[in-house]
């Protein structure tokens, strides 16, 4: 799972720094955190945030701080509510993408972009969920 996450995050990093402003790295991190709920995702958030800033010519640390804070908030929220649901992922991705784009100074079509981001986040979440289920089944069979 960790290897798969690194490959996916690297792909998102390359796409986000060269062809799109959709926060793909952030969406991948949220989906991962909602499913796995583990500490190593914080570390990925920090590292990939720093790399994203580096390749996008931004001041280092901005994306890292945002990713780590948002992932922390997700874990706090899950103490009281179920977070591994489509509605939660859709909402979290929308609010997170909107805040992230606002933080980076985008102001054109930001709501539309956040909506598209939320849908992409949901697709990633469904894909991860299926991947984890398949992983569990194959490990049981072994």
């Amino acid at each position, binding site marked *: 799972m960790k290897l798969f996450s690194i490959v996916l995050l690297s792909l998102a990093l390359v796409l986000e720094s*060269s*062809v799109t*402003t959709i926060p793909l790295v952030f969406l991948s991190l949220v989906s991962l955190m909602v499913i796995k709920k583990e500490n190593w995702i914080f570390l990925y958030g920090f590292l990939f*945030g720093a790399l994203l800033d580096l390749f996008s*010519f931004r001041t280092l*640390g901005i994306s890292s701080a945002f990713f780590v804070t948002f992932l*922390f908030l997700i874990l706090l929220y899950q*103490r009281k509510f179920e977070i591994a649901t489509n509605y939660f992922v859709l909402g979290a991705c929308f609010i997170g993408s909107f805040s992230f784009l606002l933080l980076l100074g985008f102001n054109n079509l930001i709501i539309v972009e956040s909506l598209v981001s939320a849908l992409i986040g949901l697709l990633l979440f469904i894909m991860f969920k299926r991947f984890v289920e398949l992983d569990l089944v194959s490990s049981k069979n072994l």
Partner: protein
Amino acid sequence: MPKRSSITYFFVILILASLILFILSKTGILNPITSPLRALFSPIESIVHGGMLQITGWDESSKIKLLKQENQSLVGRLIDQQKIVADNKALSDQFQAQNSRSSSLIPANIIGSPGFLPGISVPEVLTLDKGNKDGIKEGDAVVYKNNLIGKISNVSDFSSSVVLITNSSSLFTVKTLNTQGLGVIKGQGGGEMILDNVLLSDILEKGDFVLTKGDINASGQGFLPNLVVGEITSVSKNPSDLFQKAAIQSLVDFTKLDKVFVIGN
């Protein structure tokens, strides 16, 4: 599921690390490390960007591309001719002077142009494969043929980023070609610009071209005069307002660009 204390511990450590990274990055201490890393990543970025240009440009035949290029070149010639007709020999000399600077043009490939929908949405910034080592400095103007593209905003040793003229942070003085109206271009994001702060007494005409007025500073950075910014597509004039406005459309399709030129000092 990790314990709450361990989550908080992780969070605090990483937030502090981000803060340290931010401070080090702001002070420029990390530049010797970040520049080679960006240089390492450039080829990957270039391949992805090139691939995306091919995917999004598959429906545009080479004949249409050629016609577009020819059209741009004809518009450039038309502007030059109109200038020559309208002005006297002094302006012609100025034009010659501008050409003499073309020797300091630095060609650069675009290796990144992130936009909302790749190849469709107009990007806000571009990443170039040339940097400090090639003579590019912050504030240098970026052009394509006679058209103004943007300004260098960040430079590392082997790459740089350009803020497009349509970016919402873009602001510079311009004049219209036929009527010599003066105003300020304000980027609106998403490929849109408005010409603002034009006096009501000035005349703005739909179809007139907008050129840079020239704002080179003492260190030689900024925009040269008479670079093409775009064409007026609509005029908004209200007698009760202090100024009139106009919508401007650039002659360049920013989504299809793969090479630009930086005017070095």
